[in-house]
């Protein structure tokens, strides 16, 4: 415990390239890039599959299958296979980012798909019957109604990526995971524990930010947030949507 506090309060650890702020930024950067790319791929795909009903089988099983694959193994394989073909830092960053994207896709895809699928068939029927074309039904009705679950999927995916990025430090990626790995190799428990605490706090902070954004971005008509009887659901992300750590 003492070692942990000593390390956290040591000024030297707060500056420079190996310093805490830089590592935090790195971690966030790697994570956000992966989530963005995954979202760009998975959200439209999920919306499409939910709207047309084609490819359901693949989606329903994708999230389950992804959960079974150990992320550490994937990271190592990616670096070993792709690393030699790339130069410098990219040898580590690119394979790791690819794995992060691949791991983030299933929860986001599942969220987008489930969100669209859950839209009340009567609502869809009414929208079409009023004269909305397919695309209009999707953007004006299905997408807004699917937002809660899309956010849920994004939240799970982001936490997934933040956690895996931590592990990716062993594969050469930077970020907060470095403290855990470096501390381990030199038996500096203060550093290890410090890094662990920082990662935990970062993950929680990201989760809270998502919760806040979700609360204000989703229509009140959907969440039932009228200050009366109903409690706002999804205060915590559904762990079942998250794949692995």
């Amino acid at each position, binding site marked *: 415990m003492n070692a942990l506090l000593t390390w956290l309060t040591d000024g030297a650890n707060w500056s420079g390239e190996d310093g805490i702020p830089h590592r935090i930024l790195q971690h966030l950067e790697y994570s956000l890039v992966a989530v963005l790319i995954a979202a760009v791929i998975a959200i439209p795909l999920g919306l499409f599959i939910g709207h047309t009903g084609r490819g359901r089988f693949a989606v329903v099983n994708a999230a389950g299958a992804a959960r079974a694959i150990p992320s550490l193994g994937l990271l190592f394989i990616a670096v070993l296979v792709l690393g030699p073909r790339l130069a410098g830092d990219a040898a580590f960053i690119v394979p790791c980012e690819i794995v992060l994207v691949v791991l983030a896709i299933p929860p986001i895809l599942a969220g987008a798909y489930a969100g669209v699928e859950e839209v009340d068939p*009567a609502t*869809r029927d*009414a929208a*079409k019957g009023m004269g*909305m074309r397919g695309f209009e039904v999707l953007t004006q009705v299905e997408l807004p109604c699917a937002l809660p679950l899309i956010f849920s999927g994004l939240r799970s995916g982001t936490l997934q990526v933040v956690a895996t990025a931590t592990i990716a430090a062993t594969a050469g990626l930077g970020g907060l995971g470095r403290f855990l790995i470096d501390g381990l190799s030199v038996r500096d428990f203060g550093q290890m524990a410090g890094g662990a605490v920082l990662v935990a706090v970062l993950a929680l902070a990201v989760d809270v930010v998502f919760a806040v954004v979700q609360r204000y971005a989703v*229509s009140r*008509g*959907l969440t039932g947030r009228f200050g009366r009887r109903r409690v706002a659901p999804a205060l915590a992300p559904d762990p079942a949507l998250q794949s692995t750590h």
Partner: protein
Amino acid sequence: MIRFDSVSKAYPDGTVAVGGLDMVAPTGKITVLVGPSGCGKTTSLRMINRMIEPTEGRIWVDDRDTATMNAAELRRGIGYVIQQAGLFPHRTIVANIATVPLLLGWDKKKARARALELLERVGLPASFANRYPSQLSGGQQQRVGVARALAADPPVMLMDEPFSAVDPVVREQLQDEFLRLQGDLGKTIVFVTHDIDEAIKLGDQVAVLRVGGKLAQLADPAHLLAHPVDDFVADFVGRDRGYRGLGFQTAPALPLQAEPTVRLGATADEVRASGASGDWLLVTDDNRKPLGWIQPSRITASVESAGLHRGGTIASVNGSLRTALDAALSSPSRRGVVVDETGAFAGTVLGQQVLAAIESSARPPATDAHLAGSAT
């Protein structure tokens, strides 16, 4: 006007939902499609706005073949109300109602103003405007659904069991208000229901469909009740046909007897002095509106509201033979209470007198068209 021209719908697995339907839904009238499960009534309705495409035949809306029109544009010109309302949960009530106008490109202010106007028209308070559907009851949501369908003022409205998902009390209110609204608006309406009583109450004409989507009979409600074309229709229309048919016959001037009455709050002495003969005495309020009956022998102190027998229904001088007969049947004194146009007591009528009026009145004639059934 909507015209079905040999319209059929067959599915790849062989089921025939609608088989060669020919009929006309006249402009400005309510045409009700009714029949047992599997008779193709909902399918027929949904073929009008091409939510389902016919496999054969054509449908004409105001002399335009629907198959030649762009489906989305066709639907923007037709109001569509479904059983569960299908309101957009993520939009406010006002935004829901304004959907089609906004789709058509109306100015936002104009669309909103129109939505507020319709909100009032369907009997909802203006305070509901910024609420969300989840905050409204089933009956209220249905009203919003109707308002939404009316927003762009379409000449044609399609309604698929719109009042079936609410409880009977609310359903009756919605039906009455719907009739009032139609009285003001005069739209061409095609209405689907499985409830024959609703069909008879609401329809200007009723189309009874058989399983397999064939038209069994197309007639106005009075003729349907009086002259069902075959056993299927007769069974479907149900029992008490004669009695229900009376609802469509206005009572001729019925002989009314005068009747002693007392006011609410009268004392026992006034009751005795009223000259009541027999067991029952009618009680009215200060405006001569009948409130109920009392038994004079039981009054010890004064006539109280709690002691009134309210079992009897009240008929109107302009009402139907059915309400007159029911007033006589349900009254504890066997004397049916009749009121005038203002609701003030006009006199009583006996069951025998109503029956005499019934027997001397003409039944609706059966014409060839009504007997023919499927051909129009």
